[in-house]
C-alpha cells in the first residue's frame, strides 16, 4: 500500500477525539442568546376529535413566551408534511395521501400526535405550562393494528381512505407463478409476523429554529441524516421559505438507523415559531416522546408459499403481505414495503417465478418508515424462514437446499423476476467460508452434548442479498420516487496543498470523516491530516441526498471519485503549463505529475499553489483555482450479500435462549476501512438479534395505546445479552459499476441476523414439532411453546 492511511487501512477514526472527550456537538448541545424552549402538547388518545384548546392558564404561567396551535399554523398557511414517494395500486390508482400537519387541526390520529406547542424561557417552565393546556377531546374508536384495520367495519383513520387502505400493490408475474404452483411436487407454506420495532437511536430527536429579522434568513439545526432533503421538503412544501433563505444544519448526530431521514413536524414547528416569537426556539425529545413519535419500522403480517420440484429446486414464490403504515405517511414510507421489500424476494435464489401482493394500511399508531434495512430485513426473514420450512418439507439439509438454489456466480449479471439486476455475487463462496467457521460437521455432536446437559441446541443459516445505494434516478423515478437519488461532492485544494472535501452524505456514526479522507489521501498521495471532510450543512455543501440505505460510499464515495477525477484533469493542465510539456505527455501517479520519459515532475501541492497564485496562465485556456464539484448518479443498485450462521442453546426450564456463536461472512465489494466495516457489521447484527430475541413494539389493538413506551417495557439488547462475533468478508466480487467497486455495509448485519437467529431457535425446538415461531423469541414464548408441545412428545 502506497499510503499508510489509504484505501484498505484500518485507520483509527479521526472523529473519536471529540466524542471521547465530550466535545461532540449534538443539536441539544447548542445554545443561543435569548433562546427559548419548546415542549409539545401531545394527544393521549389514539383517535379523537379536537373540540377546543384552552391555554389561557398555560399562557399565564411563569416564563411562558407563547402557546401556539394548529389554528395558528393554518392562519399562517403552513402546509402538510410531504411524502417523497408515490405508489400506485394494482388498478392504477394513486395511493391515498391524506394531509399530515405539524400540529393537528381538527383530529388526532395516534397517541403522541402534536396539538400545541408551549414556548418558554426554560425547558422546565415549558413543560410545566404544557401540562396546563386543556384540550377538549371527543374520543373516537381506534385501530391499533393492521389486521384490525382491514377487519370488516373497522373505524376509519382517514375519511377519504376507504377500508383504511393506502394502496394495494403487486409485483411479478402472477400467471407464471400460478402455473408453477400447479405443477409443483412440494409446496412449503408459512404465516409470519415481522413485528414493529422502534429504531431507538441513542440521541433523541431535537431541533432548533432561528430567524434573522434583518436578513430574513432562517436556520434549522436538527438531528437529520439528510439536511438538504429537510430543507427542500420543509422550505418548499411546509413553510414556503425559498432555499437561499433557509439553512439546515445537521451537526453531530447520535445515530439514525433510518429514523432521522424523515422530515418531522417538530422541525417545521421550531423554524416557524422562531419567527413568531422573534427568538431562537429549541425542542429536544425526551425518550418517551421518541417512542411515541419517531417513525417506527417493520410491522408486516405475511403469508408465503414456495413451490418446488421433487428435488427441492425452487419453482415459484407467492407472497401476500399486510403492511402497517401508521396514522400518516412518513417521508419515504410507501417505498419500504414495496420497492425495498418485494424486489428483494428473490433473495440469493434463482426462483424463476415470483408474485408478491402488498396491501398497505393506515392505523392509529405512529407512522412507520425505514428502519435499518428497511424492507430488506423483512424480505430476508420471510425467504430464509420459508427455505428452512421447505428443507423440512423435502427432507434436505438446510445448507444443501440453499446451495442447490443459489444463483450461480457464472449467471451474473442476473435478472431477477422482481425487477432487480444483480451485478455480482458468489453466494456459494460465502457459505463455503462460513461452514468451517462454525464447524458445521461437529454440530450434531454439540447438540447431543447439550442434550446430555438437558439443553436444546440449534443452528440457523441465513443468506441475504440487499439492494443498496438506491438508484439510478431514472429507475427510482419510474418506481415512484419524487426526487433523483444522486450524490454530490466537491474537492477543494487550498494553495498550500491541503484539501477540504464537501460531501452530500451525512455521517452519524459511520466514520465518513475518516473513510472519505482515506480515499483522498490515497488518490493524491498526501497525508490524511491534510484532508478535511465537511458534511451536514446546506450553506457549505452544494447539495446532498444524505445517508441512508448504505449509500454513502457507493454513491457519495463515487461522487468524490468523480470530483477527484476532475481535479486531476485540471491539475494535469496546470502541470503541463508549468513543465512546458504537452498535456498528453503528463503521467500521474500517487499525486505526482511527471513528463513521460523525463525526471521533470511536480507534486499536487506545487500545482495547487500555482493554481491560486498564477502569473502567466494562458487565461483563455486555463482558469486559476483547483476546486471541482461533481454529481454522481449510480448506474444500478449495489448488491451486498452474505451468509450468517447462528448457534443457540435454549434452557427448556426457563425458555432462555443463549447465542453460543454467531458468524457473519459478507461480500461488500472492496473495503476502504476494515475496522469501520467490521464495526458496522457488529452493530447491525445486534439490531437483528434484538428483533429476534428482545424487541417488540406493542400497541393495544383496540385503544391504540402504546404499551411499550420506555426502556422498561421495550427490551433493548444490552452488553450481557449478546455474544462476540466472528466476522469475515471477501473482496472477490467488487461492484462492477461504481469506481471504488464498493457495495455498502451499513445494513447487512441487521438484514441477515434476525433470520439466522430464528432459524436456530426453531431448529433447537424441532424435537417438539415446532416449525415456526414469531419474533421475538422471549423466554416466556419459548417456555410456553415447549410446555404446550410437551404432552405430544410424552405421548410419542
Amino acid at each position, binding site marked *: 500500500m502506497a499510503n499508510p492511511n489509504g484505501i484498505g487501512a484500518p485507520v483509527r477514526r479521526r*472523529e473519536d477525539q471529540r466524542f*471521547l*472527550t465530550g466535545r*461532540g456537538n449534538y443539536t441539544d448541545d447548542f445554545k443561543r442568546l435569548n433562546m427559548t424552549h419548546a415542549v409539545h402538547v401531545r394527544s393521549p388518545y389514539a383517535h379523537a376529535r379536537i373540540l377546543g384548546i384552552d391555554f389561557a392558564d398555560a399562557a399565564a404561567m411563569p416564563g411562558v413566551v407563547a402557546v401556539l396551535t394548529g389554528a395558528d399554523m393554518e392562519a399562517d398557511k403552513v402546509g402538510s408534511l410531504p411524502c417523497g414517494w408515490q405508489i400506485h395500486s394494482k388498478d392504477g390508482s394513486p395511493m391515498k395521501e391524506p394531509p399530515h400537519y405539524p400540529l393537528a387541526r381538527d383530529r388526532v390520529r395516534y397517541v403522541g400526535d402534536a396539538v400545541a406547542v408551549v414556548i418558554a424561557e426554560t425547558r422546565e417552565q415549558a413543560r410545566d405550562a404544557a401540562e396546563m393546556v386543556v384540550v377538549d377531546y371527543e374520543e373516537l374508536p381506534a385501530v391499533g393494528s393492521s389486521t384490525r384495520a382491514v377487519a370488516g367495519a373497522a373505524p376509519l383513520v382517514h375519511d377519504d381512505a376507504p377500508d383504511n387502505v393506502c394502496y394495494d400493490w403487486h409485483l411479478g408475474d402472477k400467471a407464471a407463478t400460478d402455473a408453477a404452483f400447479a405443477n409443483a411436487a412440494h409446496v412449503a407454506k408459512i404465516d409470519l409476523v415481522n413485528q414493529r420495532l422502534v429504531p431507538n437511536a*441513542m440521541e433523541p430527536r431535537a431541533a432548533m429554529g432561528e430567524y434573522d429579522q434583518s436578513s430574513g434568513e432562517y436556520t434549522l439545526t436538527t438531528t437529520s441524516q439528510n439536511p438538504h432533503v429537510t430543507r427542500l421538503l420543509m422550505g418548499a412544501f411546509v413553510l414556503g421559505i425559498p432555499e437561499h433563505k433557509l439553512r439546515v444544519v445537521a451537526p453531530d448526530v*447520535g445515530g439514525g438507523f433510518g429514523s432521522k431521514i424523515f422530515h418531522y413536524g417538530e422541525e417545521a414547528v421550531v423554524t416557524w415559531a422562531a419567527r413568531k416569537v422573534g427568538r431562537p426556539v429549541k425542542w429536544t425529545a425526551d425518550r418517551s416522546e421518541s417512542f411515541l413519535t419517531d417513525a417506527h419500522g417493520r410491522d408486516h403480517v405475511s403469508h408465503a408459499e414456495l413451490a418446488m420440484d421433487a428435488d427441492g429446486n425452487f419453482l415459484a414464490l407467492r407472497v401476500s403481505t399486510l403492511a402497517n403504515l401508521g396514522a400518516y405517511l412518513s417521508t419515504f414510507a410507501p417505498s419500504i414495503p414495496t420497492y425495498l421489500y418485494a424486489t428483494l424476494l428473490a433473495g440469493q435464489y434463482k426462483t424463476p417465478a415470483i408474485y408478491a401482493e402488498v396491501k398497505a394500511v393506515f392505523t392509529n399508531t405512529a407512522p412507520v418508515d425505514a428502519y435499518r434495512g428497511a424492507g430488506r430485513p423483512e424480505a430476508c426473514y420471510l425467504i430464509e424462514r420459508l427455505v428452512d420450512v421447505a428443507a423440512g418439507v423435502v427432507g434436505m439439509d438446510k445448507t444443501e437446499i440453499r446451495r442447490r438454489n443459489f444463483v450461480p456466480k457464472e449467471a451474473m449479471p442476473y435478472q431477477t423476476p422482481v425487477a432487480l439486476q444483480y451485478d455480482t455475487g458468489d453466494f456459494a463462496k460465502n457459505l463455503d467460508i462460513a461452514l468451517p467457521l462454525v464447524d458445521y460437521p461437529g454440530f450434531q455432536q454439540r447438540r447431543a452434548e447439550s442434550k446430555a446437559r438437558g439443553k436444546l441446541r440449534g443452528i440457523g443459516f441465513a443468506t441475504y442479498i440487499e439492494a443498496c445505494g438506491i438508484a439510478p434516478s431514472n429507475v427510482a423515478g419510474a418506481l415512484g420516487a419524487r426526487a433523483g437519488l444522486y450524490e454530490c461532492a466537491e474537492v477543494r485544494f487550498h494553495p498550500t496543498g491541503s484539501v477540504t472535501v464537501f460531501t452530500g452524505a451525512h455521517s*452519524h*456514526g459511520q466514520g465518513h470523516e475518516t473513510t472519505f479522507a482515506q480515499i483522498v489521501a490515497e488518490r493524491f498521495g498526501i497525508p490524511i491530516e491534510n484532508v478535511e471532510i465537511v458534511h451536514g450543512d446546506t450553506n457549505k455543501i452544494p447539495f446532498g441526498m444524505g445517508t441512508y440505505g448504505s449509500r454513502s460510499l457507493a454513491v457519495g464515495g463515487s461522487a468524490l471519485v468523480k470530483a477527484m477525477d476532475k481535479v486531476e484533469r485540471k491539475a494535469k493542465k496546470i502541470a503541463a503549463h508549468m513543465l512546458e510539456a504537452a498535456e498528453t505527455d503528463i503521467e500521474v501517479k500517487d499525486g505526482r505529475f511527471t513528463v513521460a520519459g523525463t525526471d521533470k515532475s511536480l507534486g499536487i501541492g506545487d500545482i495547487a499553489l500555482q493554481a491560486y497564485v498564477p502569473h502567466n496562465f494562458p487565461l483563455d485556456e486555463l482558469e486559476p483555482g483547483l476546486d471541482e464539484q461533481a454529481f454522481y448518479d449510480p448506474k444500478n443498485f449495489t448488491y451486498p450479500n452474505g451468509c450468517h450462521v447462528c448457534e443457540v442453546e435454549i434452557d427448556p426450564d426457563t425458555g432462555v435462549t443463549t447465542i453460543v456463536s454467531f458468524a457473519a461472512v459478507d461480500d461488500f465489494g472492496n473495503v476502504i476501512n476494515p475496522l469501520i466495516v467490521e464495526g458496522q457489521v457488529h452493530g447491525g447484527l445486534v439490531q437483528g438479534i434484538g428483533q429476534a430475541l428482545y424487541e417488540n413494539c406493542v400497541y393495544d389493538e383496540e385503544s391504540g395505546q402504546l404499551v411499550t413506551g420506555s426502556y422498561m417495557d421495550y427490551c*433493548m439488547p444490552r452488553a*450481557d445479552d449478546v455474544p462476540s462475533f466472528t466476522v469475515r468478508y471477501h473482496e472477490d466480487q467488487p461492484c462492477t459499476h461504481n469506481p471504488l467497486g464498493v457495495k455498502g455495509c451499513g445494513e447487512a448485519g441487521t438484514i441477515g441476523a434476525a433470520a439466522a437467529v430464528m432459524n436456530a431457535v426453531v431448529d433447537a425446538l424441532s424435537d417438539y414439532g415446532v416449525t415456526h415461531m414469531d419474533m421475538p423469541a422471549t423466554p416466556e414464548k419459548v417456555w410456553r411453546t415447549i410446555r404446550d408441545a410437551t404432552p405430544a412428545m410424552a405421548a410419542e
Partner: protein
Amino acid sequence: MSCTVSMTVNGKTVSREVEERTLLVTFLREHLGLTGTHVGCDTSQCGACVVHVDGRSVKSCTTLAVQANGTAVTTIEGLAAADGTLHPMQAAFREHHGLQCGFCTPGMVMSAVDLVRENPNPTEAEIREGLEGNICRCTGYHNIVKAVKAGADAMAGAQATPVAAE
C-alpha cells in the same frame, strides 16, 4: 424555590443558584455548559448520563444537583489529562473502535473506568455484566468489550509505573 449548590467539577469549585428540582445532568449541561454528559432516556436505563461522584459512577439523570452538593464530580470532559492526553480507557475505545455515533460514549467510558476500579482484571462476561446499565445502539458491544479489556490492562500498566500521575 431555589437553593445554592456547590461542588467540585473536574477539579474546579463551582457554585450556582438553582431550582431545587434541578437534576445533576441539567446542572452540568445547562448551568455549567458541560455538554459531554448526555441524556438518552427518562427512566434511568440507558446510562448516557453517567458521571463520577466522589469516584463512583452515578446516573446523573436520576440524581438531584443538591444531592451532589459538596462532592467531587468528574465528567467526561475531566477524564483526559490537562494537556489533552487521553485517559487509557479513552485511548482504548479509540484504538478498538469502541464507538460510532459517540452519543452513549461518555457514559460508557465513565462506567468502564469505574468498572475497572472495582474489578481491575475483568473477564469478558464480567465486562458485559458490568456494562448492563449502558445501552449502545451502534457498536453491538463487541468492540466496546474489547476496548474495556484493553483499557483495564492499560490502566493496570499505568498504575504499575511508579511515576504515573494520579
